[in-house]
């Protein structure tokens, strides 16, 4: 039976834990709002970009192969898996789900006899994957330098690194695993192919009504500048979605933690009061029996 003093200490410690989780929840809620706004603001650009790429890819003549970023190397032996997770923990199952999806993909590719290379973005994914796959790691990108929701620099940097590795022939196919922000309560881990570039299936293509495109300078040159940017845009919007998802997951996790701490405090206070009453009763009995004995 814990003493009154022990109970008192525990209640106080749970109370301070609740204060912390409550504060973290409120901070996450405020950050979520900003992250969601940033993700929403970037969406029109990404959508237009996707439909421009879809148009271009659709009007590529049969036989002309186009740049390698679009048509691939002709092989799919070596895969690069880019895993995008958060820098910080305490976000419930957020990173675990992304890592789980990455593991599934890696196992599937390895099972099909492919060579897999892993590039991690964000500390948490590296920590969780390093134990199993340390020999497959080819790089890591730190996101701790990113301030606010400005991922453009980090995204362009990552895009350059990936296209650079692709051009030097390090891999044939690149897939980005990240957490897609559906709504505050659900973030879905998805695997999205980056290279060879794919126009999203739902991108609206525009009917040209039989006319053909005029290109300035030329279709090849436009594709060559457009594709790296398209890849960067995909990476940046994935980072924004993941950022919003992280805050949403943290908010939900901290809300649960706050509620659990509240319940714990109620239980402990009940126990504390019982113990206190038991002690008073005991003291009374002692006094009364002492008086009777006299």
């Amino acid at each position, binding site marked *: 039976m814990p003493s009154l003093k022990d109970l008192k200490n525990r209640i106080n410690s749970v109370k301070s834990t609740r204060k912390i989780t409550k504060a973290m929840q409120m901070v996450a809620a405020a950050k979520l709002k900003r992250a969601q706004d940033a993700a929403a*603001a*970037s969406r*029109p*650009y990404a959508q*237009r*970009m996707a439909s*421009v790429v879809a*148009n*271009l890819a659709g009007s590529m003549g049969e036989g002309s192969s186009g740049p390698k970023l679009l048509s691939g190397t002709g092989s799919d032996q070596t895969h690069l898996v880019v895993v995008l997770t958060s820098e910080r923990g305490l976000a419930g199952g957020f990173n675990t789900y992304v890592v789980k999806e990455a593991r599934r993909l890696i196992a599937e590719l390895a099972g099909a006899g492919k060579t897999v290379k892993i590039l991690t973005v964000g500390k948490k994914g590296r920590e969780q994957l390093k134990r199993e796959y340390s020999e497959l790691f080819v790089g890591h990108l730190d996101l701790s330098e990113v301030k606010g929701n400005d991922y*453009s620099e980090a995204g362009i940097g990552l895009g350059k690194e990936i296209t650079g590795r692709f051009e030097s022939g390090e891999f044939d196919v690149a897939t980005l695993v990240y957490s897609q922000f559906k709504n505050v309560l659900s973030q879905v881990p998805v695997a999205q192919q980056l290279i060879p570039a794919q126009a999203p299936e739902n991108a609206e293509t*525009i*009917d*040209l*009504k039989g*006319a*053909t*495109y*005029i*290109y*300035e*300078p030329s279709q090849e*040159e*436009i594709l060559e*500048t*457009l594709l790296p940017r398209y890849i960067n*845009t995909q990476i*940046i919007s994935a980072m924004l979605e993941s950022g919003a998802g992280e805050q949403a997951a943290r908010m939900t996790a901290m809300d649960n933690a706050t509620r659990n701490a509240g319940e714990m405090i109620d239980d402990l206070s009940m126990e504390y009061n019982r113990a206190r009453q038991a002690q008073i009763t005991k003291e009374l009995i002692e006094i009364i029996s002492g008086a009777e004995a006299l």
Partner: protein
Amino acid sequence: MASKLHFSLVSPAKELFSGEVDHVIAPGTEGEFGVLVNHAPFMTTLKNGVVRVLENDTTRMRLFVRGGFADVTPAGLTILAEEAVDLSTVDAAKVDAELEDARNKLAAEGKEGPHAATLKAQVDYLSDLKSAVVN
């Protein structure tokens, strides 16, 4: 009344313009071009410069873009800019200060520094922007 051209200009940060207009003049890498309604499908890269939106032959809006793409389809004109600002909201003195700052940084970095290319692009962009604001 002839139908109008649907024009939208988006940058990674936000959608700056979307709506029906008469005429848009944009700075293509191979020269300035104008787009009216029912233009043939056309795609080009853009250089730094001013996109003018015209309504009944008067300029309604001037936007400065920093590179990007223009895509003309039967559905309208879409400009994907790397960076874009509405010139009516630009403060000339601020641009001057930023240009000065970027120039100093470039000078400090030297020609061989790792960020020299980025800084050079920034200086070019700002000086183009400055001349667009003055005019």
